[in-house]
């Protein structure tokens, strides 16, 4: 008689489509129910997390592709919610078109932002209290749900058109920085301009407002840079991207 561990290894090997002799241990052979359920459950979870990708590929092709993913990457997560983490990486390994990989990355960021940590966001009033002469020393903390992504395709417009059940918009090259975050418990996203993206990156890296203004001079006229950076800052605050300001 097999010990419990070997029995479980054999059962698992059967589900993972490895060589297994579990059939010898079973009275009623309905192992196929477990086998089908294993793939179906993970595929359904992936369909939920990658709704537009599923539509772009077509459900049959998505299921075929994700079946290969499931075989290669069994879940090590306690919650099925995290299972799709490596899907875009697997798409890259299998040379799927870049615009599909980018859509997978974008949809995964939506799921990451959805239940990322909470934080109280800062307001315009918070910053209005700081004397103007101290502004150059300001540093900022961003919301824990913020995710950034370098886009090389029109991924956001395509994603939005699929929400409207308009499947006519084709993927095209378009370079931008996209951000995903949560405001009032709702996931938001948008593309940033080059200077906004640069400024946000410097904020995340801990640079102060003075350093940011100096660096932005490569995009903005030196006489306008402070005003422009302040306008960007106001926009970030109104978007609920920032949670704290410190004076360094």
């Amino acid at each position, binding site marked *: 008689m097999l010990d419990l561990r070997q029995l479980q290894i054999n059962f698992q090997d059967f589900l993972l489509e490895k060589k297994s002799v579990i059939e010898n241990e079973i009275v*009623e052979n309905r192992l196929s129910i477990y086998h089908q359920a294993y793939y179906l459950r993970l595929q359904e979870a992936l369909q939920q997390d990658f709704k537009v990708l599923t539509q772009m590929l077509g459900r049959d092709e998505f299921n075929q592709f994700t079946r290969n993913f499931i075989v290669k990457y069994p879940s090590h997560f306690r*919650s099925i919610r995290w299972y799709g983490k490596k899907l875009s990486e697997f798409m890259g390994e299998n040379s799927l078109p870049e615009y599909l990989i980018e859509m997978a990355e974008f949809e995964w960021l939506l799921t990451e932002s959805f239940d990322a940590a909470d934080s109280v966001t800062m307001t315009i009033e918070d910053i209005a209290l700081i004397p103007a002469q101290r502004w150059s020393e300001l540093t900022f903390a961003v919301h824990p749900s913020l995710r950034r992504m370098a886009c090389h395709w029109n991924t956001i417009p395509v994603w939005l058109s699929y929400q409207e059940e308009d499947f006519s918009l084709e993927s095209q090259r378009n370079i931008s920085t996209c951000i995903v975050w*949560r405001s009032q418990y709702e996931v938001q996203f948008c593309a940033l301009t080059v200077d906004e993206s640069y400024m946000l990156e410097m904020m995340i890296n801990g640079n102060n407002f003075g350093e940011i203004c100096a660096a932005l001079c490569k995009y903005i006229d030196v006489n306008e840079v402070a005003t422009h950076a302040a306008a960007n800052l106001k926009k970030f605050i109104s978007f609920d991207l920032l949670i704290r300001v410190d004076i360094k």
Partner: protein
Amino acid sequence: MVDTLGFGLGLRAEHYNAILEECPPLDWLEIITENYLVPGGKPLYYLDKIRDRYPLVMHGVSLSLGSTDALDWDHLKQVKALASRIEPAWISDHLCWTGVNGINLHDLLPLPYTHEAINHVVAQINQVQEFLGRQILIENVSSYVAYKQSEMTEWEFLSEIAKRADCLILLDVNNIYVSSYNHKLNPYQYLDGIDRNRVQQIHLAGHSNQGDYIIDTHDSPVIQPVWDLYAEAIKRFGAVSTMIERDANIPDLNELINELNHARSISDKMLKEKSVA
């Protein structure tokens, strides 16, 4: 044992707003533990709001008590932290295994009913209960295969583990029906074999009948033979906290409340008959 909480439903995201806006007549709600082991966002926002209005119990799907892997202490720490946050009336998980060698198959896989498995699961439950500082409930799962090496019935296996680990039982009446159908057993004999003093909670659910076997799908209303079995369970075990699970084809909340009210009426009737007798 905690006194009966009455009649509850499984909390599903589809019903968050209806529950908060309508404050429906539910005695309690059961959450799937793993759905709330996240850093923040909407799931925890709604959970806290709903906890302000209803008692909650936590129901896990991945403790993997029967796995021969070591317990996942990181996961258990998260479970304990969530329990501190929402103070559930109790915490349950399944009498099953979900994977080995670090893999999670995300299914509730049956154990062989052997003394070796009993020894193993009892030791696991002891560790979990010690860590959480409370008794847990273990639930019988639906099964589609049986192992040649089993040395006893499922109900003997469940009862022996509950007794030796001094834990409580979440009796899934639908799962008893499903497994009894699949393995050609008498579900009433199953009920006979369960210690009434350990049954803390009952699950009811629908399933999918494929002819020569049944799959536990939780996607349809409870069927009459399961209601009949539930009536018998109440007759034997007395008033037990009861809830309906629906995980697919999730209907309007009122439809589930009507179904729950049917459970309530069956329970009332059986308890009345019992008191007269």
